[in-house]
């Protein structure tokens, strides 16, 4: 009987939509069945790994299984569209990244979601600062050397795709007088490293984690990092701010998000669960090993954070006249 009542109630809620206030009973019962977590990328890889690290803990905190669903395609836009359209009942949440929320709205006239209104960002899972590196055989030892070299000849910068963070970082650098032609590689890491080593590329931006692997291996030399503070893995590498370019400060991010319209009590519980997971010692030490940083912000603070970044990218994209359509 009670089950029938709940069923009727939830049906009612579905039909009335998110606008009608949800009865507290439903919010209290939540979560009484598994939660879907949409990863807008393929399985494996860093996005999947981060989600799994977090959701193992979040699932323990909420006492409910979290099932991962992969919706790859169009650099995460397909999955984000699906998350935005999902029933806002707290049983469908997912991952959101810098690309879909802060960069794509400035590039594409038509998106399957509205970066401002479709989602509530529950919590930051990790942020990935970038590092500028040159091949180890290069005579360049510092950002100043690179700038001097770029005045003598035109440089080649490797990027993992147009208007991605690797590319935008290079464009930010261009504003400080280090000019270069961006060369885009679909596959990223491997092809770029080959091109760096055989001398085709002069420099590239990539995540600190990736660059550090190649520096330890004696293939790359890291010149500077885009994080706010020095990275613990690279205590000797300066930040761009220290070098007098505080505007070159960027990190991509991995965040947990819910479709907007999820009842406030459920949002609060989800946000609290992700915040608790983010502070757990295992996650903190794992993030550090992966050269990821994190900030602990509430959903409204995250909304502001994302709006600010979107505006920053808009300026860069307009100034450099980056177009994809």
């Amino acid at each position: 009987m009670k089950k029938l009542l709940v069923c009727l109630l939830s049906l009612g809620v579905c039909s009335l939509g998110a606008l009608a206030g949800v009865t507290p009973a439903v919010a209290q019962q939540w979560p009484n069945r598994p939660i879907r977590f949409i990863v807008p990328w393929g399985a494996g890889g860093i996005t999947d790994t981060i989600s799994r690290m977090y959701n193992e803990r979040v699932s323990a905190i909420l006492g409910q299984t979290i099932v991962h669903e992969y919706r790859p395609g169009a650099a995460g836009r397909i999955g984000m569209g699906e998350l935005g359209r999902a029933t806002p009942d707290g049983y469908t949440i997912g991952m959101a990244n810098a690309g879909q929320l802060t960069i794509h709205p400035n590039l594409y006239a038509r998106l399957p979601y509205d970066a401002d209104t479709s989602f509530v960002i529950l919590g930051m899972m990790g942020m990935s600062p970038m590092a500028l590196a040159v091949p180890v055989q290069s005579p360049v030892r510092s950002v100043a050397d690179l700038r001097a070299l770029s005045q003598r000849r035109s440089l080649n910068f490797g990027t993992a795709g147009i208007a991605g963070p690797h590319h935008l970082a290079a464009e930010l650098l261009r504003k400080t007088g280090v000019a270069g032609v961006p060369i885009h590689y679909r596959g990223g890491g491997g092809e770029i490293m080959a091109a760096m080593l055989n001398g085709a590329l002069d420099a590239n931006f990539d995540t600190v984690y990736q660059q550090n692997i190649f520096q330890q291996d004696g293939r790359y030399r890291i010149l500077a990092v885009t994080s706010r503070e020095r990275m613990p893995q690279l205590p000797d590498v300066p930040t761009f701010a220290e070098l007098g370019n505080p505007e070159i400060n960027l990190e991509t991010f991995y965040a947990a998000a819910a479709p907007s319209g999820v009842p406030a009590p459920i949002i609060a519980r989800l946000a609290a669960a992700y915040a608790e997971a983010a502070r757990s010692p295992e996650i903190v030490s794992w993030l550090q090993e992966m050269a990821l940083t994190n900030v602990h912000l509430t959903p409204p603070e995250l909304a502001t954070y994302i709006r600010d970044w979107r505006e920053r990218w808009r300026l860069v994209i307009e100034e450099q006249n980056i177009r994809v359509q």
Partner: protein
Amino acid sequence: MTDTPASGEPRGGSRTNIRDQIAGMLFVLLGAAIAYKARSYTVGPPSNSGAGFFPFYLGLLLVGLGVAITAVASFKHDPDAERFSMHPRTFLGVLLPVVIFGITLVPAGLVLSAFIAVMLSSYASPEVTFRGALLNAAVLSVIVLVGFAMILGIQIPVWPNVLIEWLR
């Protein structure tokens, strides 16, 4: 390139290879469409080519090849020119279940969709009786449920949405 020496006795069929003529003309049309659409992207010179460069010239190449195929086909007979036979029943019987499966999968789930698709596909073959189709559909639905959903555990909606909502 394919001009068969005229030594071979014509084995019936028309004097021109209609099959190849149709293929050639389709290549011409398709190539033209590709080249036309490519003009809306930046073409540019080869040394500084834009997004439209490859599709534009590939389209033109396809037009050229299409013209050549049509031309060659006009001067030779079809080596085995049996009549074009179309069997709309077979054609629909194979492709319609695929489309219907795509439509029903998300709302109705894997098991029901597989059942419907197998039932529909029986239309393709006159050998399948209604009872045979029913049996086949039932067996396959179970195989699909056990194999894909239970053993392999692939990500796919299994049961109808309505049923899930009702059980909740």
